[in-house]
């Protein structure tokens, strides 16, 4: 049953299995294990980013395509849901069609970009997506009549998903069973479903062919696979899943703006998560996203403390100031591309005794 659910792609390392179990169990019972607003925010963010980063890994790790437009698709999904909520008012129906519309638009964009620029080289695609995504972000912040510009959109979601709604009066383990909890579980289960679907995709014949195309496009073409078709399909799939993850973010935050969905910073975060977690394996996305977001939320504070403690050494304290944590992640990123291109997961699998 479990093997079937994981599509036969097991973690293949005892430590990795243990880590994944810890993460899944912690996320599944997060509201009860770690009560508090901040930890629930963190847990929901981790869930959404696991889906998002895994969809990026589908492209980068499995198809060998570097895209810088992933946040664009993420944003299209988020704005789809957000606009549906703010135009027709909060209801589950509008969530559904907003999400669907976002996914369709993302698919069309991905298809257009893919057909247009995947024929040539990986480098070409990377450059084109970078340009298109930046233009899209600028356009969204300019069209303030529709998207709220830089301020973004604030909207209401169905009452059943807000803290004001009480499912039952009593508290369970000292936790109120309210709409926020429901919203969290919506995010959790939706992300889990997306993840399992992706696991299914990469372990299907399609996924295998994709890996063949990644490793040797010329040979794959010679055997008779249409390389452009496989690459474009992978782009579209990953765009749709990114858009769905974006919709989840829109539901969870009740706010959608350029800074939370479209910015280049988030694109770089995704890149770091995939590479540090491990390219070419979806479990890498789980580890990468979890570690990165925990670091983002908690390591910064730690660095702040360390920086204050060393404030008498002028340069060092600047280097380890809380805002400079990306510096160290960047260094870690470069090192991991050189020395462990398979990331944490690859290391764990290699060291399996």
């Amino acid at each position, binding site marked *: 049953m479990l093997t079937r659910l994981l599509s036969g792609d097991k973690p293949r390392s005892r430590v990795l299995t243990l880590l994944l179990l810890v993460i899944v169990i912690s996320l599944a019972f997060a509201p009860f294990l770690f009560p508090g607003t901040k930890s629930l925010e963190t847990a929901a963010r981790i869930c959404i980013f696991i889906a998002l980063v895994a969809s990026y890994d589908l492209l*980068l790790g499995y198809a*060998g395509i*570097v895209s810088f437009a992933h946040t664009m698709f993420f944003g299209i999904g988020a704005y789809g849901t957000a606009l549906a909520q703010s135009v027709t008012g909060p209801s589950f129906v509008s969530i559904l069609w907003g999400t669907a519309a976002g996914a369709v638009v993302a698919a069309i964009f991905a298809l257009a970009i893919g057909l*247009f*620029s995947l*024929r*040539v*080289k*990986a*480098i*070409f695609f*990377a*450059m*084109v997506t*970078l*340009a*298109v995504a*930046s*233009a899209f972000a*600028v*356009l969204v912040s*300019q*069209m303030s009549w529709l998207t709220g510009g830089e301020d973004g959109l604030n909207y209401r979601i169905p009452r059943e998903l807000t803290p004001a709604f009480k499912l039952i009066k009593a508290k369970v383990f000292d936790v109120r069973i309210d709409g926020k909890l429901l919203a969290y579980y919506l995010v959790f289960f939706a992300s889990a479903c997306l993840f399992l679907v992706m696991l299914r995709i990469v372990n299907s014949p399609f996924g295998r062919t994709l890996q063949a195309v990644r490793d040797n496009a010329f040979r794959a073409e010679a055997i008779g696979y249409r390389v452009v078709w496989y690459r474009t399909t992978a782009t579209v799939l990953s765009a749709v899943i990114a858009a769905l993850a974006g919709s989840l973010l829109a539901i969870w935050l009740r706010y959608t703006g350029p800074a939370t969905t479209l910015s*280049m910073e988030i694109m*770089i975060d995704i*890149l770091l998560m995939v*590479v540090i977690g491990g390219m070419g394996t979806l479990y890498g996305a789980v580890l990468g996203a979890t570690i990165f977001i925990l670091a983002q939320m908690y390591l910064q504070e730690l660095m702040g403390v360390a920086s204050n403690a060393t404030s008498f050494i002028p*340069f060092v304290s*600047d*280097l380890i100031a809380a*805002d*400079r944590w*990306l*510096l160290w*992640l*960047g*260094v870690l*990123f*470069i090192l991991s*591309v*050189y020395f462990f*291109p398979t990331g944490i997961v690859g290391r764990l699998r290699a060291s399996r005794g």
Partner: protein
Amino acid sequence: MSEATIKPRIEKAPLGERMIEKLPVVLVPALAMLGLIAVGNPATWLTLTVAGLAMGLMIFIMASGLTVVFGLMDVINFGHGAFISVGAFVGFTVLIWLGGWTSSPSVFLNLSAVFMAILVAMLATALMGYAFERVIVMPVYGEHLKQILVTMGGLIVAQQLIYVFWGPDEMHVARPESLQGSFVLGEAAVEKYRLVAVGIGVVLFVAMRYVLKSTRIGLLVRAGVENGEMVEALGYRVRRLFLMVFMAGSALAGLGGVMWGLYQETITAHMGQEIMVLVFIVVIIGGLGSVEGCFIGALLVGLLSNYTAFLAPKVALVSTIGLMVIILMWRPQGLYPVVKAK
């Protein structure tokens, strides 16, 4: 007897073919004409055109290094933007040191302050380019995927280091006295600094063409772009040549950074990353590896951005993407595709 010497026969393509090959050159005046029709008012048009040329030439300065590096070694440097930012920050620091020179009314002192800033910035970015090539690019030759990732990582680290050295705030520096304000030509107002930028850009383009077409190093670079292995087989060290080109490209990015910074008068650590979007569009339009294509592409993008910024400010960046799409439909490899013998 002397009449019978055999003359070497140089094959020339027929005139028609050569004309079609050179067709992209017409695009720039064509776009300028279209701009004149769309804008209507000749005075406004002149102002916009000079602004567009200045912007285009600055982008060309930054993009040329990138495209030659790609042509020579098949390396695309996503961290190129870091050199632009670093160049701007170093240049501005020098300008602040030379505050007395920039605020004096003497044109000579003003210009020498700017040239000092440019010189120091180019030196700094060339050295940085050396380090970048040795540490970041060299281990991943021939692997595109890793190149993109690693140079992106280099960009992140460089940006963060700018924050460490210069603090998190943006920097403001006013342009030197004699470069402020504008000339009035008839009814059109043309900013002085833009003319200076156009001047520097044109001089640089001519110099670069001279180096590439008429010197031994240029010959080697062009041969290397065409077929690197063959050049290596003839006994030249392509790797060292490449390192030199990489450093030169970085220095040009630094120069572009200073010029762009003086143009905006405000610089941030991620300015390079923002300009890189335009640089990539220009490099794609021109054809990866082609300097001439890059020049024409930069002028097109500069002019188009300024016209659309005047006519419909919200779609300025989108219009350049549109331009890129149209050009790629016409010539899928860019205006001047670089023929690879590899």
